[in-house]
């Protein structure tokens, strides 16, 4: 599983980095993103691109998002 740490980056860098990471992600692989806030606009994009995601709130206030191809 690939991991991307987007914590502390200014907009639009987290969104940009996630899109770049997804463009090179093998079809059956998953991407785990660490981010400092819940990226609501990203979800609509993921849905439109055929990805499923699972967001978990971390104890330190950050979020972990697991992204993979929708089955």
């Amino acid at each position, binding site marked *: 599983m690939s991991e991307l740490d987007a914590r*502390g980056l200014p*907009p*639009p860098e987290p*969104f940009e980095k996630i899109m770049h990471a997804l463009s090179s992600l093998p079809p059956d692989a998953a991407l785990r993103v660490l981010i400092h806030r819940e990226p609501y606009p990203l*979800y*609509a994009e993921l849905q439109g*691109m055929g990805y*499923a995601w699972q*967001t978990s709130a971390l104890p330190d206030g950050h979020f972990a998002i697991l992204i993979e191809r929708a089955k």
Partner: protein
Amino acid sequence: MSTASLSTEQAPPISVPLRFFAVAPLFLILAALTGLMSDRLADAHTPALLAATHCITLGFIGMIMFGAMQQILPVVIGSPMPSSRLVAWSSLLPLIFGTLTLSGGFLLSNADLLHLASILLGLAFLIFIVASLVSLARAAARNATATAILLSVLALTAAVTLGIVLAQGYAGGWQLDYPKLAAAHISLALGGWVMLLIVGVSYQVVPMFQLTPSYPEWLSAGLAPALFAALLLNLASSYFDVLPLGFFAEGLFWLCAVCFALVTLKLQFQRRRRVTDATLNFFRLGMISLLCAASCAATALLAPAHEYFRQLSIVIFILGFALSVIHGMLYKIIPFLVWFHLFRGGVKKGVPNMKEVIPEPWMWRHLWLHIVTLLAAMLAFFWDAAAWLLILGLSLQGVLLSFAILTGIQVYRRTRQRLEKV
């Protein structure tokens, strides 16, 4: 907590917020032209200044906030307004014509125009308030921002109701306690709607765009409810004529405002990337202005004989605090929107980065012009000639902001056409 799915379309089309942003600066120019018809700027109750003030508060601040809320709600609380295009058109047009007829009604002392303005503005705000409440009710996030926005919308509802009563009263010659109602209207519109909205949005926008630490929990949890409670206490004191309660309520409000300004300045000082840009300085100017507005309000509270300090506080609040923060946010939001709507749907080559959308030197020029305009507005209380500088400054700001926003729209259109050809 986990989230597996959300509504299919989070962000409204780019045209929704941009049409509000494109119209708003024209009202700054109109406010300046209307101000030309006033003899003295120190008296806010002349028809021309009432018209000019409403061009700024409704035509500019209200217009920007209508557009910004459409964009900000899905990003910060994960819930867009329903039927965004329909809500945009059906609130934009009555807001434009309502502001024009209200200003015309004040200028010409025309009862028909004031009646028409009440209907148009009532409609615009009704649509906006209902759409905002629906969005808030559906929100995935229940956080301090959602609470502050909800309280700001409630304050707006009361402010609009009082505004309509006042306009109808003027038009129909009703016997009302105008000074008391006008004071409540101003306090709810500026201290409620504008202040609470800026507070709520800042909790998200300041850490997100300026890379500061988050607002401390004690502040984000307690500030908006405390500000709202202060406004309610102020209304109660005015209604029941209990002066000490009013003194306490006003003191509490400004104490909260000072806390917000100082904490924001401290967070900006602690930002992770030490790069200074014009938008950060617009925000800083806004916070310093809020401190100045609080000082003037405190002086007026302790020395009621100096009534002009109260008016000075309102002027600094509107031009120094609200306008500075709005300009700062616009110069971040517009480039972000242009970038986001071009980039979405997958990685593309040839999408300009955010810094290429509106030239940074224009933002700095606008910042300096805004500072001169603000100083002129403060001087105009004591020196009539400064009013000319204020009028000139406001008109130039309208022109500069129009140019910046139209540049952003043009960059979006040109890049979009190029990407479609590829």
